[in-house]
């Protein structure tokens, strides 16, 4: 077999899997939507930044749930760990450089991912779900009790990030925060796109379908999933740190069961097992929440419930998943 034939084959293959045209379009769409958001809601950039932070959590959840089939209702533990680490670095140690705070968030998120992974991956199915719920409650309670570090139920304040790269102050309108968030999301998106298409991503897809088969190929599903949990933790840590840096406060809600459950709802809404699904779900859910709760503060949760039921019943692959498979079918029909 010569190199030429191999390369010919790659060129002729029906689906291109490297970071190529499709991925650049995806990145372009993210940046375009971000730009539209910037001009459409100039007075609400804080909300948009918050959406990006949560989107990073949902992307992180998608890595373990969508790509690896791990059931968890405790994923905000990873997000919260990142948020508190970035916040504590600033409030208690005077490390106020946003990028340094971000690094703390990433490391803490990855460490929390390792801890959660080791515990959660010991079980499967319902017991796994219960372990994840127990973990998020433990994380929450720990943060609540360690109030000298975390501020407990009052929240952690005193976070004072300095100018980004020493040039861009975090302004009152949240412009710097928003641009910072978009940049982080774009970087994370590109990295994850590469990872899900890498040999490791393929291994994880295999584990999701049949872990016993993977074992009989000589690979350890547990080691691979733990690794994915650490990566997932780092991504959630980026989200948490972004939230801490841009809002300058960290509350207990950032590692709550509610936040974990909501992130799962967003993922299912958008479509599991696809990075765009995670992003779509987050944007739709949070916009819906914002618009509907403003329009009808008493019944907005009912409407969110109705939306979710409608999606699960009529578009079980999620909003993005359904649209994507519709487009594929149309293309094949032609």
């Amino acid at each position, binding site marked *: 077999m010569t190199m030429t034939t191999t390369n010919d084959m790659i060129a002729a*293959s029906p689906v291109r899997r490297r970071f190529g045209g499709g991925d650049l379009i995806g990145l372009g769409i993210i940046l375009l939507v971000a730009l539209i958001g910037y001009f459409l809601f100039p007075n609400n950039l804080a909300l948009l930044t918050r959406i990006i932070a949560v989107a990073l959590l949902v992307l992180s959840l998608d890595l373990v749930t969508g790509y690896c089939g791990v059931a968890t209702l405790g994923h905000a533990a990873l997000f919260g760990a990142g948020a508190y680490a970035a916040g504590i670095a600033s409030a208690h140690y005077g490390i106020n450089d946003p990028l340094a705070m971000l690094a703390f968030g990433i490391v803490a998120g990855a460490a929390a991912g390792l801890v959660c992974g080791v515990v959660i991956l010991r079980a499967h199915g319902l017991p796994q779900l219960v372990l994840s719920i127990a973990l998020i409650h433990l994380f929450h309670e720990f943060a609540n009790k360690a109030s000298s570090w975390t501020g407990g139920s009052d929240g952690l304040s005193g976070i004072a990030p300095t100018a980004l790269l020493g040039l861009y102050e975090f302004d009152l309108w949240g412009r710097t925060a928003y641009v910072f968030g978009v940049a982080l999301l774009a970087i994370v998106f590109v990295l994850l796109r590469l990872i899900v298409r890498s040999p490791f991503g393929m*291994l994880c897809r295999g584990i999701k379908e049949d872990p016993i088969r993977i074992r009989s190929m000589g690979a350890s599903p547990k080691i691979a999933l733990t690794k994915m949990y650490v990566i997932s933790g780092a991504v959630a840590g980026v989200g948490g740190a972004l939230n801490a840096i841009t809002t300058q406060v960290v509350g207990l809600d950032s590692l709550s069961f509610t936040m974990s459950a909501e992130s799962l709802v967003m993922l299912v809404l958008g479509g599991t097992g696809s990075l765009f699904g995670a992003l779509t779900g987050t944007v739709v859910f949070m916009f819906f929440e914002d618009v509907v709760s403003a329009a009808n503060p008493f019944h907005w949760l009912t409407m969110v419930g109705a939306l979710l039921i409608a999606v699960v019943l009529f578009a079980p692959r999620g909003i993005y998943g359904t649209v994507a498979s519709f487009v594929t079918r149309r293309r094949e029909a032609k």
Partner: protein
Amino acid sequence: MQPIFEVRNLKRAFGGLAVTNDVSLSMAPGDRVALIGPNGAGKTTFVNLVTGNLRPDSGEVRIGGEAVTGVDAIGRVRRGLVRSFQVTRLFADMTPAEHVALAVLQRSGRAGRLFGNFRGMSDVMAEVQELLAKLGLKELMHRKVSEIAYGQQRLLEIAVALALKPRVLLLDEPAAGVPQSDTGRIEQALADLPDDLAVLMIEHDMDLVFRFAKRVIVLAAGAIIFDGSPSEVTKDPRVREAYLGSYANASHAA
């Protein structure tokens, strides 16, 4: 020749019932052995003990002279003991190319890589194409497994096993469930297996056994009652009794 695969006095009982009772066998590179036996003879338990999915009560399993009784299933695969499954266990959403690539990457220690793609790794792609071409699956290499015929899925099982470059290959009924018209392709694939590979095939189809195996081992009630050439197996009175006995019981039960 130094045996590549040895089982010594393997025993396993479930609640007092000896399902594997003092089983010993030895295989050299290039051996083509068929393991047969009536239903309930303990073939599945034997496979599970050998592959490390079940712990024996006593006895030893050796691969290439190394005792692997304490090694788990994954470790045994890494030492060259690879199995195929009676019912295909493939990834429905993946393509044949991805299956074989995953096996090649795993074997070469690259399955954990976070960046790059197997399509860009020329050595991996060359091996994937060569293997799939050998088994007549090259045209289908980018179709989803759920879209290809069952006989082709069985061939892909063999391709995945071969991509792991085994020293000992355990084939669990490689032609099970395949329509008669397609078994020829599978038999061809079995005939083309590497010469230095030791193959232990568990099979019910006696025609296939006689065409493939140079040596037949008969398991009945957890023990080996025959180990010899295919020409002698049908003449052996204990084998006839074991099979007749099981058929008599089956018809009695029915």
